[in-house]
């Protein structure tokens, strides 16, 4: 059966939701950002983007670029409510929906044609239903896989619909600028541009082996992606790695190693709690560290044996942190992602060989229960004194 995937992208989601709440914002440059001066830009309307405002920029920089813009603090409750309404519409068209973010998602439309007609008809209906029920405009991309449908919906901006026929992926992708290709991040885009690869089609001028030698498995993925191949399934539930992300934006930026390690412990605690609630054990962790000047470094650490204990997670993270934190620059954000998990054994042991570990496990579960019932801070942190 021919695979058909739809990518739905809400145009200017955050600004549009703010305009729905406050019609006076219509036609004006809207910047959704935290409180000044250190707050960061969460999203910017097309008008603000035209002035040079981009996501991740500090509010003070954004104000310098867009002095006439309206700066609105993010209302996450409202954004989530509207997002739920959008995805409620998508769920009518297929049982397999993947929510990539609040404003983007995939629909696996394979085999649903008999119910809702051709994919273009379904896309049109989805667009009009979302517009009628939420007042938002969406762009729809349809293709044989997630990657091409994503590019198609970007091409369909604003409020259009693009269907890439099966077999026509290569010519469709060829003229796309390399920095607009979803699997290429900013750092890699500039590296590819230095190598003379400015468009997706340029990738195919080389061989897959060259990309594999230069960039490893990512290079292989890029080559296949440029050829229009992507076998990633549409997952109704987020992958454990994505669910298991814990981050903290430091207020204010910190440079003291001791303070940063305390934050790291809080992140380990949060990660441990998530793992235990899903009865998973972490095998490896990724630590993302973003400096105040925007530079970002990423490191990976493997646990000596799979676990969910906060202290053991912390020890692994501390090792990674020591490798990553090499500059005397303030740190803005730390994030921990569990990159590999395995299920926690549910079979109880007859002979408890490590009594201390068993007691710690029991204590952690009790603390988790307390934290779930009472506000944060009632249940104390355990295992490390945090200053």
């Amino acid at each position, binding site marked *: 059966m021919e695979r058909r995937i739809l990518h739905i992208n809400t145009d200017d989601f955050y600004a549009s939701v703010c305009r729905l709440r406050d019609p006076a914002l219509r036609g004006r440059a809207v910047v959704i950002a935290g409180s000044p001066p250190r707050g960061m830009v969460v999203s910017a309307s097309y008008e603000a983007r035209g002035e040079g405002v981009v996501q991740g920029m500090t509010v003070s920089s954004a104000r310098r670029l867009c002095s006439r813009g309206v700066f609105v603090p993010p209302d996450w409750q409202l954004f989530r409510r509207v997002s739920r309404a959008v995805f409620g519409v998508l769920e009518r068209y297929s049982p397999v929906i993947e929510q990539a973010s609040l404003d983007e998602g995939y629909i696996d439309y394979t085999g649903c044609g008999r119910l809702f007609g051709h994919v273009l008809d379904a896309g049109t209906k989805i667009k009009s239903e979302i517009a009628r029920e939420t007042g938002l405009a969406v762009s729809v991309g349809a293709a044989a896989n997630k990657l091409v449908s994503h590019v198609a919906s970007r091409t369909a901006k604003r409020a259009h619909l693009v269907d890439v026929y099966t077999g026509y992926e290569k010519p469709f992708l060829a003229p796309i600028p390399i920095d607009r290709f979803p699997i290429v991040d900013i750092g890699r885009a500039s590296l590819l541009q230095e190598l003379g690869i400015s468009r997706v089609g340029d990738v195919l001028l080389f061989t897959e082996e060259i990309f594999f030698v230069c960039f490893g498995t990512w290079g292989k993925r890029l080559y296949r992606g440029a050829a229009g191949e992507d076998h990633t399934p549409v997952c109704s539930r987020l992958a454990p790695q994505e669910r298991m992300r814990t981050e903290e934006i430091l207020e204010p930026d910190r440079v003291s190693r001791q303070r940063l390690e305390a934050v790291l412990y809080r992140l380990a605690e949060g990660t441990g709690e998530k793992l235990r609630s899903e*009865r998973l054990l972490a095998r490896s962790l990724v630590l993302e560290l973003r400096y105040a000047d925007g530079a970002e470094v990423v490191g990976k650490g493997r646990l000596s044996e799979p676990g969910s204990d906060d202290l053991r997670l912390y020890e692994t993270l501390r090792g990674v942190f020591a490798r990553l934190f090499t500059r005397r620059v303030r740190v803005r954000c730390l994030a921990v992602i569990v990159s590999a998990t395995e299920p926690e054994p549910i079979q*109880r042991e007859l002979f408890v060989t490590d009594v201390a570990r068993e007691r710690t496990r029991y204590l952690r579960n009790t603390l988790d229960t307390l934290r779930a019932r009472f506000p944060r801070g009632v249940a104390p942190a355990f295992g490390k004194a945090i200053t």
Partner: protein
Amino acid sequence: MKIIVQLGELSKKMNAISSVVPGKTTMPILSTVLVVADKDGITFSATDLDISVTSKVKGKADGKGTLAVPAKKLAEIVKSLSGDSVTIEASGEKMTLTCGKSRFVLNGRSAEDFPKLPKQESKTSFSIDPETLAKLIRKTIYAVSTDLTRPALCGVLWEISRAGISMVSTDGHRLSKVDLAREFSDVESVQVIIPPKALSTLKAYAEGEKEVRVSIAENSVSFDMEDTAIYSRLLEGPFPAYQKVIPAANEKELIVGREALAEATKRVSILADTLTHQVVFSTGKDKLTLHVNTQEIGEAKEEVTAKFTADPMDIGYNASYVMDVLKTIDADEISLKLDRSDNAGLVEPVSEAGELKHLCILMPLRIS
């Protein structure tokens, strides 16, 4: 050398002996069986260096001879034959088997390369009837661990004293213990751990024998029967202190029919998770409900008539472990004594006649 033996006897012995021969070995001689013919019959020996078996098949012999031949091929040939008797001839390094109109010539190896079979000096020994021994083995061998990082659990603990024998096996998630209350005069009290392979070989050979003589030495054990001798190295301990984990205060008793529970468990476990095999037991006053709910597969539920003496509770078990236990209990009804849903459950037969006392311990699964 030429010898005529009964096919039935040869087939039985070869079947058992081939189980000792290692499947993969760096020493090719270990994949052979040593064949020694004398005037009374023919003796087959096989070893994997931990366990050795020597078994004699009576027959009419003409001359003497020794040869090592591929064990698996010889067993396959014997298994495929039909008839009453087989003629075995050896000349040089070739063995010829003739049965009716079939004739096989097997290329062998020099018997000199075959490892010398060990002889042990026994510390203590006793005799036991093969039926009881087979029962003791059947009730314990299933719970032996396969985790090589805990070698002591990879065998069955034998506790021998003048008052009887206790056999215990555990894999860390379940435990089986069977006591034989029988007087053994002149026996020294010893504790040894015997590998399961030796016990399963013994069980295969002991069938039809009159008596088994068990001799225990410092590092080995031997089982001598009329025509067969099995030698095995012992596993090194220490065996965990199993007495401490036998629940003494489990007062909530569930009494249920063994067969009904086994069948219900087998049925509902069809939909159990393939990794955990989780089945939840919900106890009621006069019934036991078995639930399985696997997100990707589906759900199953079955009720079994039972008696329960406490407030209802839910407890999760690995269905395979439950089935293993139920297969080895001989009584019509079993008693499952429980405490909390995260504590060990004690399974015993409700009525047990004779000199055997059997108990099993099952550790539950964590249920949400």
